[in-house]
């Protein structure tokens, strides 16, 4: 493995939830410890399965791992860190200020930015030289801060008179106000990140076209900040011999190889390692040692063991949606779970029932909306370009509002406008023009704002005014936009996820966030299920078996109702394949 050669002091693994960062970070830490180094493994995995992996309780203190001399681990829970941070700010005024005010403040500090900054705050002590880390040769992190966070920390404008005095006008850095650490310490931590002698960043992705494009963007963003030493790991590749086992495995193999051939140029220039899909669960030292090894291990799931799966189809779910005759359907989920495809499948199912549907997507590739447009009676398709909308929104604000700011203030405003919230708001604003149609027909959207954003917009009243103005122009009757979103007769939120641990946990997080805003997700959709595709290949059957536990968790604890969508051999493009996706004919293998 190239990324293991001559490793510097700090190793960071970054990539989307579910790509296997934590497993690879654990395997790396074991490999380095077995080479005689003293290693500290730092995990922020929300699944918190590092403890399970090593069979010992770890938690928020440095713990030696039994059976692995030289290896210690530390678990950071970003949610808990963010909660502790909120308590520091809100605790002293609870009972002193009106409850509504206290609740409002808590919401301000409940966004993704706060969680991310709180996690970084926990990192800083490990990145600067201290007694805490003096005993270790390597510190391995299973996550990395985003470009947005690092850039904010680098901006002098964000700091001037801010942390030092505890007051001032910083923006997205607002969440930093209550943090303990000094600016100098943050400065040194950011410096360590950008020092190629000390820090190596390993990008982890699956061999899927969209995932590789996304990791290419992460690469460019972090390289621009100065994190120049980057490596690429393609994880979970289906081995060639497996492709001979069945047609689904062959199709997956072909798709992965095609994605690798089309690797974005900037990634192709990086040192790259490939890690094969393993048939075993990555739990225990032995399994992790094998992960980065060369020898493939045979799968142990035999053909005759049945995979018990109760898989309600998407089509059945759409029956219930169709019963209301009209309404807004929003697909929500983390990037890469297939929201656009699922939105299209729901829209096609509704249109096939003779119901008028407007499918509106933010699909950057546009090929889906193009292939569907005009292909089915009752189906109207439109598309907004999220990058164009966000750019337009940024330019408008900078032109109108940035003119009077000095250089530092303007730089800060520009960075604020690069936050994930800005894109979410710009896209949702563009969609809100179409939402009013949901009173008479179906509107299906492939994106939804988070509960946190809705609460903030609702609190400022800005969203209310925005929609009210558009509705008033049509003379339509309405209550408030937030009430429309909270009413399941008018709005149904479908949470999309994959049958894997981290994606399920991430979807549960989104659900909790929506519930805070008084919105109950109507159903969950588990996409790309190998189990529902009834594979024959032993490796895929093993994966299918692993999915069952996650599917059971969704069915038993998370979802009020759910559907399972099988992994298809071909990309689900066009009406007939989308209908196949939603098909009723999914049975237990």
């Amino acid at each position, binding site marked *: 493995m190239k990324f293991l050669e001559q490793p510097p002091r700090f190793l960071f693994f970054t990539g989307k939830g579910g790509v296997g960062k934590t497993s690879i970070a654990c395997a790396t830490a074991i490999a380095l410890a077995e080479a005689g180094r003293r290693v500290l493994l730092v995990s922020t995995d929300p699944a918190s399965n590092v403890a399970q992996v090593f069979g010992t309780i770890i938690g928020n203190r440095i713990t030696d791992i039994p059976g692995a001399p030289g290896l210690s681990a530390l678990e950071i829970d970003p949610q808990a860190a963010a909660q502790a941070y909120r308590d520091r700010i809100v605790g002293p*005024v609870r009972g002193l200020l009106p409850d509504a005010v206290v609740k409002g403040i808590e919401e301000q500090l409940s966004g993704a930015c706060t969680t991310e900054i709180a996690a970084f705050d926990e990192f800083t002590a490990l990145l600067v030289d201290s007694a805490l880390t003096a005993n270790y040769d390597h510190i391995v992190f299973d996550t990395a801060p985003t470009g947005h966070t690092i850039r904010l920390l680098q901006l002098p404008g964000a700091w001037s008179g801010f942390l030092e005095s505890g007051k001032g006008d910083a923006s997205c850095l607002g969440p930093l106000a209550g943090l303990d650490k000094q600016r100098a310490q943050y400065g040194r931590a950011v410096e360590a990140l950008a020092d190629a002698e000390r820090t190596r960043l390993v990008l982890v992705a699956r061999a899927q076209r969209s995932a590789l494009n996304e990791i290419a963007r992460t690469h460019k963003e972090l390289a621009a900040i100065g994190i120049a030493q980057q490596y690429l790991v393609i994880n979970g590749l289906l081995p060639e011999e497996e492709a001979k086992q069945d047609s689904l495995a062959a199709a997956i193999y072909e798709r992965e190889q095609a994605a690798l051939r089309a690797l974005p140029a900037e990634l192709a220039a990086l040192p790259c390692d490939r890690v094969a899909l393993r048939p075993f669960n990555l739990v225990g030292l032995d399994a992790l040692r094998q992960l980065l090894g060369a020898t493939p291990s045979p799968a142990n799931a035999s053909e005759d063991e049945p995979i018990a799966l109760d898989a309600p189809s998407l089509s059945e779910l759409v029956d219930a949606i169709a019963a209301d005759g009209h309404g807004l359907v929003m697909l929500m989920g983390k990037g890469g779970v297939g929201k656009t495809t699922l939105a299209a499948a729901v829209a096609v199912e509704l249109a096939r029932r003779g119901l008028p549907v407007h499918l509106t997507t933010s699909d950057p590739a546009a090929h889906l909306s193009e292939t569907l447009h005009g292909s089915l009676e009752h189906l109207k398709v439109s598309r907004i370009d999220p990058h164009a909308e966000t750019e337009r929104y940024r330019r408008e604000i900078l032109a109108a509002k940035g003119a009077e700011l000095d250089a530092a203030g303007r730089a800060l405003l520009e960075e604020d406008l690069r936050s994930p919230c800005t894109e979410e708001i710009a896209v949702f*604003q563009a969609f809100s023009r179409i939402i009013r149609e949901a009173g008479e027909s179906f509107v299906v959207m492939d994106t939804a704002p988070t509960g946190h954003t809705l609460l903030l917009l609702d609190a400022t009243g800005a*969203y209310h005014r925005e929609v009210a103005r558009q509705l008033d122009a049509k003379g339509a009757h309405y209550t408030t936009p937030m009430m429309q979103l909270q009413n399941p007769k008018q709005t149904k939120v479908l949470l999309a996820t994959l049958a894997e641990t981290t994606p399920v946990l991430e979807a549960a997080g989104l659900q909790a966030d929506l519930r805070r805003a008084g919105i109950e997700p109507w159903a969950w959709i588990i996409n790309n299920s190998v189990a529902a595709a009834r594979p024959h290949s032993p490796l895929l059957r093993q994966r299918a078996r692993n999915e069952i536990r996650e599917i059971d968790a969704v069915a038993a604890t998370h979802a009020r109702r759910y559907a399972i969508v099988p992994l298809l051999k071909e990309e689900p493009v066009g009406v007939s394949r989308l209908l196949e996706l939603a098909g009723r004919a999914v049975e237990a293998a």
Partner: protein
Amino acid sequence: MTAIEIYDPALCCSTGVCGTEVDQALVSFAADVDWAKQNGARIERFNLAQQPLAFAENAIVKAFLERSGQEALPLVLVAGEVALAGRYPSRSELARWAGLVETATEPKHSGCCGGGSC
């Protein structure tokens, strides 16, 4: 010199970009505060989301919040007395309270409410 205290509503960004519309009044006011400070005014801003204790510890501000709610912010105190509520002050108001003389370089913007939170 007279101390001016501004109690801001809970803003996720002081520039307000998190809202669907950036509040021009807020952006202009940030520039005005900078100008006044550079000319020697003593101005302090407190953000409800970041320094709630400052709101709780001042009896006037606390009572204002209890009576009128956070929707009624911002609140401006001059020498500890309520000078203005519900909108941000203009540059000339700031100058008058702080005893400054305005120069001719004041950028053109409306001194009255620019929408948004007022």
